[in-house]
C-alpha cells in the first residue's frame, strides 16, 4: 500500500461532497481507491473525474459500441485513435471523423460551434492528414422562437468564421428543425483529411526517454472541466453558470498549428502527437501513455501558461484551444522548437516518456499526482443500463393515421406550405456563410445529396454526407437508424460514389433513463445491422449523452457520417435537372407510408406513426443500379427522396437555380392516398433524369438489378409549370412560385434576428 500522496497546501480536502461534485458515483470512487491503493488528492480527483466522464470514458456506451462492425480490408485505422483512416487507392489514405459540441453550443453558440470545428480539424491533422473538407450536422428547435434563431445564427457564424479562416471548404451536411431540440441544439462537425498511406502517425507515447512537448497556444483557465460539463444534463441556470466552461477559439492560431503540426510530422522529429482536447493535458498525456504501453512524467510548471498562479489542477484540466502534445525524439527538442517558431508558435518540453506505466505529474519537481496510466484510461467502469421503451412513444408509433390520409384532389397549397418548411427549403442561407471552394478541389459543393472533392494527382474523388432523421429514430430507433445509414449510402451513390465507411455521432439523452438507454441500444443494433449489410464499417466517432433540459429529452439522433469513393471524379453527378425534354424516371417503389413525415409535422402538427422502413436488400440493389448507370454515363441527375417525399424531391431537382427554375410534367400511376404518394417518405427511391434516348437502356439496367423503375414524365421549360398528376390527386404550381418559397423561407425567418 502506497502512502497517501500529500496534497498541495491550498487544495481543498477530498470529501464525499467534492467527489459527488466531480461527477463520480460512490462505487466509482471505490474503484479510484482500488486503482491508487490510497485516497486521491484534489488534483488526482480532478484527473479521474475527467477521464471517467462519459465524454472521455464512454462508460455508458462502450459495451454497445463493441457491437458495431469496424473491419474491412480498406480500413487502416479503426476506432480508438484520433480519427479513423481508410485506404482510398493510389497510395492515398483518408482520415475522417465526426464530433459533437452540443453542450457548449447550447450555452454560447458562436464559440461552442467554432471550437467544435477546431477540435475536429485537430483530430484529423494529428493523424498526419491535411484537412480537405468539413461538413456539419445541426439540429435546432423551430425558427419561430427568438432563442432558437439566436442559437442557429450563432452556430452557423461560429462554424463559418472558424472554417473560413483556416481555409477548409465546407462541402455539405444537414440541418433539421424540430421542437424536440428547442433547448438542446446539436452541433456535430465532420472533417476529412488526406495523406499518403505511409504518412500516418498515431497518438502514442513511445520510446523511453523521449520528450513530451506542449505545442501551440498557451494554457489558460478556460474550459476547465469541459469534459465533465459535456457529460451532464443542462439546467435552467446552465447559461450563466457554465459559460466559463466553454472554450474560446482562435482559428488563426489553428491555421498556424495545422501547418506546424504537418511540418513536424513530416520532419521525422516526433513519434506521436495528440490534440489537447477534452480534458486537455490530462487526457492527451494519459491516453498517449496508455496506447504506447508506457508511462509519462510531466511537470506542469514547465507548461507555458497565460496567467500566473495556475494550479496543477487547472493546468491539467484546462481545455484551452489550439494546443497539441507531441512526443519528440530525445535530442530533437531544438528542431521542434525551431519549426514551431517559424509558424510563430511556442513549444516547451514538459516531461518524458517513462517505462513504469505511471501517469505522474509534478509541480516544480514535487510529485502532485501519481496514477497508473492504463487503469486511468481503460479502467473506467462500464455500465449496462436497463432499457425499456417509453409506453407513450409506443402509443405514438401505433397511432392510427388513416384519417390524415383523407385529403385528395388539389394538394398544391399543402405542397407549397411544405416547400416553405425550413426542413425542406433551401439551406443556401447557411452554406453561403461557409467558404466551399477554397483549396480548389470542390466538385460538388453544399446543397446537394453529398459533397464531392477531387484527390489531386489522381482521377479519384471523395464524397461525404451526414444523415439522420431524429423523428424516425424517436418513433422507432432501430428502424430509424437503418434508414439513416441507407439514406447516407443513397446520397453517396446519387453523386456517383461507392460508400465505403462510416463515422457516427450518437446524440442521446441521459442513459440513466431506461427509455433513453433503450433508444441507444436499439440504435446501435440497427446501425450494426445496416453498416454490416452495406459493408461500411464504423471507424470511429463520438458519443454525446445527457442532451436534455428540465426533463425534456431530444430525439435520439445517431448521426451517420459516411464517405465514399468515385473512381472517376469527372463523372460526379448533381441533383438538378439539366435540360428541357429530359425524361424523369423514378427508381424504387412508392408505398403508403406517412408516419414520422415532415408533412405530418408541418401540415398536421403531428409526430406519430410508423416511420418508413428500409428494405435492405432492395436498397442495395437500387444503389448498385444507380452506381452502374452513373458509371455508364446514362444519367443527367440523381436525387434521393427523403424529407417531403417524392414531390419535394422533384421540386428540389427543378428549382435549385432560383432565377431559372424548371417546370415539370409528371404523371404517377399509383392509386395510393395522394398525401402519402406525394409527401410520404418511403425509403429506397431515387429520382433520376436522362436524355430521352437513354430511357430504354436505363430501364434495362434497372431491371437487370431487380429495381422497379417508372418513367414519370419530362423536364419542362424554364419558368414553366410544375405539374404532377396521380389517380386521386394533383399538384400544379408555377415553378417560380415554388422557387420563391424554397429559396426565401429561411432568409425570411432569419431576417430581423440581428444576424
Amino acid at each position, binding site marked *: 500500500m502506497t502512502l497517501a500522496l500529500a496534497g498541495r497546501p491550498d487544495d481543498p480536502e477530498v470529501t464525499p461532497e467534492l467527489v459527488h461534485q466531480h461527477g463520480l458515483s460512490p462505487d466509482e470512487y471505490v474503484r479510484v481507491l482500488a486503482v491508487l491503493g490510497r485516497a486521491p488528492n484534489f488534483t488526482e480527483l480532478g484527473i479521474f473525474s475527467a477521464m471517467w466522464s462519459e465524454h472521455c470514458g464512454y462508460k455508458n456506451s462502450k459495451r454497445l459500441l463493441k457491437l458495431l462492425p469496424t473491419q474491412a480490408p480498406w480500413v487502416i485505422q479503426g476506432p480508438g485513435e484520433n480519427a479513423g483512416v481508410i485506404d482510398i487507392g493510389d497510395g492515398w489514405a483518408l482520415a475522417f471523423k465526426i464530433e459533437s459540441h452540443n453542450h457548449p453550443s447550447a450555452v454560447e453558440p458562436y464559440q461552442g460551434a467554432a471550437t467544435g470545428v477546431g477540435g475536429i480539424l485537430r483530430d484529423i491533422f494529428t493523424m498526419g492528414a491535411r484537412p480537405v473538407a468539413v461538413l456539419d450536422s445541426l439540429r435546432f428547435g423551430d425558427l419561430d422562437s427568438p432563442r432558437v434563431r439566436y442559437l442557429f445564427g450563432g452556430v452557423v457564424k461560429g462554424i463559418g468564421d472558424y472554417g473560413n479562416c483556416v481555409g477548409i471548404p465546407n462541402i455539405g451536411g444537414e440541418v433539421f428543425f424540430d421542437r424536440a431540440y428547442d433547448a438542446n441544439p446539436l452541433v456535430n462537425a465532420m472533417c476529412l483529411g488526406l495523406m499518403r498511406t505511409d504518412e500516418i502517425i498515431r497518438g502514442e507515447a513511445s520510446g523511453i526517454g523521449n520528450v513530451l512537448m506542449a505545442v501551440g497556444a498557451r494554457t489558460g483557465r478556460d474550459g476547465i472541466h469541459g469534459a465533465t460539463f459535456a457529460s451532464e444534463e443542462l439546467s435552467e441556470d446552465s447559461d450563466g453558470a457554465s459559460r466559463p466552461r466553454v472554450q474560446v477559439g482562435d482559428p*488563426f492560431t489553428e*491555421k*498556424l498549428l495545422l501547418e506546424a503540426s504537418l511540418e513536424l510530422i513530416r520532419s521525422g522529429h516526433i513519434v506521436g502527437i495528440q490534440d489537447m482536447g477534452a480534458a486537455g493535458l490530462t487526457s492527451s498525456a494519459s491516453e498517449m501513455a496508455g496506447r504506447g504501453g508506457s508511462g509519462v512524467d510531466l511537470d506542469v510548471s514547465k507548461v507555458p501558461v497565460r496567467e500566473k498562479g495556475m494550479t496543477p489542477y487547472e493546468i491539467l484540466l484546462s481545455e484551452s484551444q489550439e494546443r497539441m502534445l507531441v512526443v519528440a525524439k530525445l535530442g530533437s527538442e531544438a528542431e521542434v522548437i525551431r519549426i514551431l517558431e517559424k509558424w510563430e508558435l511556442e513549444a516547451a518540453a514538459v516531461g518524458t516518456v517513462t517505462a513504469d506505466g505511471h501517469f505522474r505529474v509534478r509541480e516544480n519537481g514535487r510529485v502532485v499526482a501519481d496514477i497508473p496510466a492504463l487503469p486511468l484510461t481503460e479502467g473506467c467502469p462500464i455500465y449496462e443500463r436497463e432499457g425499456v421503451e417509453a409506453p407513450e412513444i409506443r402509443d405514438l408509433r401505433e397511432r392510427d393515421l388513416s384519417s390524415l390520409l383523407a385529403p385528395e384532389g388539389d394538394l398544391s397549397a399543402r405542397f407549397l406550405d411544405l416547400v416553405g418548411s425550413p426542413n425542406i427549403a433551401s439551406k443556401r442561407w447557411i452554406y453561403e*456563410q*461557409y467558404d466551399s471552394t*477554397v*483549396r480548389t478541389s470542390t*466538385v460538388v459543393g453544399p446543397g446537394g445529396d453529398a459533397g464531392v472533392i477531387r484527390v489531386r494527382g489522381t482521377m479519384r474523388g471523395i464524397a461525404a454526407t451526414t444523415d439522420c432523421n431524429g423523428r424516425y429514430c424517436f418513433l422507432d430507433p432501430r428502424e430509424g437508424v437503418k434508414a439513416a445509414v441507407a439514406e447516407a449510402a443513397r446520397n453517396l451513390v446519387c453523386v456517383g460514389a461507392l460508400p465505403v465507411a462510416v463515422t457516427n455521432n450518437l446524440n442521446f439523452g441521459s442513459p440513466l433513463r431506461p427509455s433513453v438507454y433503450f433508444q441507444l441500444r436499439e440504435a446501435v443494433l440497427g446501425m450494426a445491422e445496416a453498416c454490416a449489410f452495406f459493408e461500411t464499417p464504423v471507424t470511429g466517432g463520438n458519443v454525446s449523452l445527457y442532451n436534455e433540459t428540465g426533463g425534456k429529452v431530444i430525439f435520439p439522433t445517431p448521426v451517420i457520417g459516411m464517405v465514399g469513393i468515385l473512381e472517376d471524379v469527372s463523372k460526379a453527378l448533381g441533383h438538378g435537372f439539366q435540360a428541357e425534354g429530359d425524361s424523369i424516371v423514378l427508381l424504387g417503389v412508392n408505398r403508403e407510408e406517412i408516419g414520422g413525415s415532415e408533412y405530418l409535422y408541418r401540415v398536421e402538427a403531428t409526430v406519430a406513426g410508423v416511420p418508413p422502413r428500409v428494405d435492405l436488400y432492395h436498397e442495395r440493389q437500387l444503389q448498385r443500379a444507380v452506381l452502374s448507370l452513373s458509371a455508364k454515363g446514362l444519367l443527367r441527375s440523381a436525387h434521393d427522396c427523403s424529407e417531403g417525399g417524392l414531390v419535394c424531391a422533384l421540386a428540389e431537382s427543378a428549382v435549385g437555380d432560383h432565377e431559372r427554375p424548371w417546370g415539370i410534367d409528371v404523371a404517377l400511376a399509383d392509386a395510393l392516398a395522394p398525401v402519402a404518394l406525394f409527401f410520404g417518405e418511403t425509403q429506397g427511391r431515387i429520382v433520376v433524369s436522362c436524355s430521352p434516348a437513354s430511357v430504354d437502356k436505363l430501364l434495362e439496367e434497372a431491371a437487370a438489378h431487380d429495381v422497379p423503375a417508372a418513367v414519370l414524365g419530362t423536364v419542362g421549360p424554364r419558368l414553366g409549370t410544375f405539374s404532377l398528376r396521380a389517380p386521386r390527386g394533383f399538384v400544379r404550381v408555377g415553378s417560380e412560385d415554388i422557387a420563391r418559397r424554397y429559396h426565401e423561407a429561411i432568409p425570411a425567418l432569419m431576417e430581423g434576428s440581428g444576424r
Partner: protein
Amino acid sequence: MKVAVVTFPGSNCDYDCYKAMQLFPGIEPAFVWHREQDLGGVDAVVLPGGFAHGDYLRAGAIARFSPIMKSVSEFARHGGPVVGICNGFQILCESGLLPGALLRNDTLRFRSLDVHIRVESTRTMFTPRYREGQVIRMPIAHGEGSYYAAPETLAELEGEGRIVFRYVRRDGELGMGSNPNGSQHNIAGIISADGNVLGMMPHPERAVEEILGSSDGRGLFEALAAHRTGVAA
C-alpha cells in the same frame, strides 16, 4: 515567367494560386514567406487570399507591415505586375498600393457563392484575353469585400477606366441582385494608376478548370503568362 506567391501566416489561398498557375505553360510559381526581405528576382507577384495575421484589427492591417511588403511595394513602384486576390486586395489597399478600402459586406455576413462579373476594361496587362463587357463567372468568399472610396477617388477610378471588374447579374446588367456585398459602383476589381497593380475580390484561381464549375479565370493567368514576352494581345 517566375511569379511569387506570398504566404503570410494565415494565408489560405496561396496553395490554390500556386496550383492554378502551374496549369499555365510559361508561369513558374514560387512561394515566398512573408518574413523574407527579398522577392528573389521574380517577374510578378500574387498576394493570395486568406486571413493574413488572422485579419486582426482589420483585414490586411497587420500584413502591410510584414517584412516582404517593403519589397512588394518597391517592385510595384518599378512597374512590376502585382495581383492581389481577396485578402490580397485588402492588403494592397491597406498598403496604399491601391486606393480605397474593403468594408464589411452590407449583409453583415460572410458570403461564399459564384458571382458574375463584367470585364470593364481590356486595356490592362491582365485582361487582354477578355472581351470588353464580357460577363464571366467565378466564386467569391469573403466577409469584408464591400469596396469603399471617397467620391473623388471613385470619380478618378471611373474617369480613368481603372475599374476592371464590376459585379453584374447573369445578364450582364447592374441593378437588383447584382451586388453581393454592397460595393460602391459594384466594384469587384480595380487597377493602379500605373496599370500594374490589380486588386480583385473574386477568385480567378478557383475558376481555371471546368471540373470546378468555371474556367473563366484562365484569361487572367494566360495574360500573365504571356506578359514577359510582350505577346499579350
